[in-house]
């Protein structure tokens, strides 16, 4: 799907490719697979404290090659690439985490509601049909364009709104079999309120799905936030941001390749490690390849 296109990864749910590996996957190995992402996130958040030089002052010549002063060389204005690299991960990670949490939270409520109330479920399907026609990047461009001074907030809002339809469809699909099970009917018949049905009856049975959904939404959010920054839509210069660094320094890739390679490597490793973690968290039951559109 796209978006979320989207660069959409919800369909990975529907992917039964590694059923056979599932049985071999135990709890400790799952924790091991989630570890790189945790380490990297902590590193990105602590990074600004480790920066040896100020991130907004020229230190060496523009695109200077690495030397003793600037270990990774200089960027387009001669600022220290190492310091900017250390400072540039935290906001990206925090932003992506916030988007993933918001999308998962909203999709959980809406998805369970859609499973309990089929009339609403049809609307979820229609909205998802609509959202598939807007590649996530274009949707974000559109919102950032209309909301001029929104910066990171505009990106986060757009990513959240565009991500919810798919995520809701995933939760609704997972909640549908639970919603028609006997104990829910009993609870509904005995007059429990809708809120109670959602939070106390259905939600606890979706824990594994929701954890995996959060992981996948985080992967997606890292993609969206970094692409937006790359298109210079979110954070503006002179902010230090990995994706923005790639964009700013790419004209000088011949002079100081590290100014581009290091942030690109960081975004790549972040995406990979989060994806690895999400994959480890994924429930391995009842997969199908029929992807609904």
């Amino acid at each position, binding site marked *: 799907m796209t978006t979320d296109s989207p660069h959409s990864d919800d369909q990975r749910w529907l992917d039964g490719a590694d059923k056979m590996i599932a049985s071999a996957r135990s709890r400790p190995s799952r924790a091991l697979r989630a570890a790189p992402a945790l380490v990297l996130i902590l590193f990105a958040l602590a990074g600004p404290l480790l920066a040896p030089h100020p991130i907004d002052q020229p230190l060496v010549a523009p695109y200077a090659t690495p030397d003793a002063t600037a270990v990774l060389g200089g960027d387009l204005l001669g600022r220290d690439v190492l310091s900017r690299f250390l400072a540039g991960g935290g906001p990206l990670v925090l932003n992506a985490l916030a988007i993933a949490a918001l999308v998962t939270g909203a999709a959980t409520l809406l998805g369970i509601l859609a499973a309990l109330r089929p009339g609403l479920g049809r609307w979820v399907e229609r909205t998802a049909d609509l959202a598939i026609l807007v590649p996530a990047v274009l949707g974000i461009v559109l919102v950032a364009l209309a909301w001029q001074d929104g910066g990171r907030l505009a990106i986060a809002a757009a990513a959240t709104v565009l991500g919810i339809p798919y995520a809701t469809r995933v939760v609704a699909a997972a909640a549908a079999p639970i919603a028609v099970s006997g104990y829910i009917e009993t609870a509904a018949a005995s007059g429990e309120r809708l809120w109670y049905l959602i939070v106390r009856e259905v939600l606890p049975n979706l824990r594994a799905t929701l954890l995996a959904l959060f992981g996948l939404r985080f992967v997606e959010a890292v993609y969206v936030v970094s692409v937006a920054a790359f298109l210079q839509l979110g954070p503006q210069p002179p902010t230090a941001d990995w994706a923005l660094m790639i964009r700013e320094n790419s004209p000088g890739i011949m002079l100081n390749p590290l100014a581009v390679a290091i942030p690109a490597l960081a975004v*790549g490793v972040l995406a990979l490690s989060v994806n690895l973690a999400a994959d480890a968290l994924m429930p391995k039951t009842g997969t199908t390849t029929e992807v609904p559109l």
Partner: protein
Amino acid sequence: MEKPRFVLVAGHVAWSALRRLAVLAVLLGVVFAAVELLPGDAASSTSERGESAADLAARRTALGLDRPLAERFWDWMTALPTGDLGTSARGEPVTRLLAGPFPNTLLLGSLALAVSVAGALALGSWAALRPGGRADRVIGVVATMAFALPEFVVAIALLLVLSLWLGWLPAVTLIGADGAPASPGMLLLPLLALAIPQIGWNTRIVRAALADQAALPHVSAAILDGLPRHRILTHHLLPGALPAVAVGVATSAGMLLGGAVVVETLFNYPGVGAVLAGAIADRDTPVVAGVVAATGSAISVVLLLADLVRARSVGVRL
């Protein structure tokens, strides 16, 4: 009396097309309204320094921005079928602005789609014929990883390895190039950067669809009959897997067009990405709405094709 099958199929096709078209129309309405309702308009964002309020108002009238929203939207929508996407904030017809770049983007996108389908079918089939083997596991892990990478990271990696370290391709396409894509080499890097994540995505779909097919009795029967593996693949596994693969490929189309915008910016490829970048700077609503309309239509066509493949293999549901 039962209707002949082709009437049912034709009805189904017409119904799918109508549904996709309706969804597209709703999307255009949402896009138009969203851009209009949020603050800032094209007249103020393209204003020159020292322009008076009266000049601004005059241009607002010239651009038709003083007319009611509903009226402008109606004009815009009714002009769409004639190929008229409206006028940009700088007074140029949007259709003319997109006439050069959009085919370039479609070329890049469809080549990348073709490469990723071919790559995914090859890798997915290779893995599916050796279930649980080393090749299967390696392909599974690499495909998952490839799909997680943003296109611009793939692009930078390719650029560093192929241009800077190996010196196979010129890195100069990164900056300063203009006009139509001059050499195949210029197309190769953006093509690979777009295709690699999608190969990952589609390989997983193909592998999973083939695994589901392999569990069916007619495939077991074919294996017991001692048919050669390639024949089982082409005659017993792939036909059944086709609908799922088609849907996966269709979702790729949207991701490819979105990714193309990014990759084009990086490689200075003369496509919609460049137009969009300019439109972003100008807050040029009609241009952005035009780009969304064009990509939305292209995605709708691919989705419709996927609908048809599914209708053909699964049969028409009534």
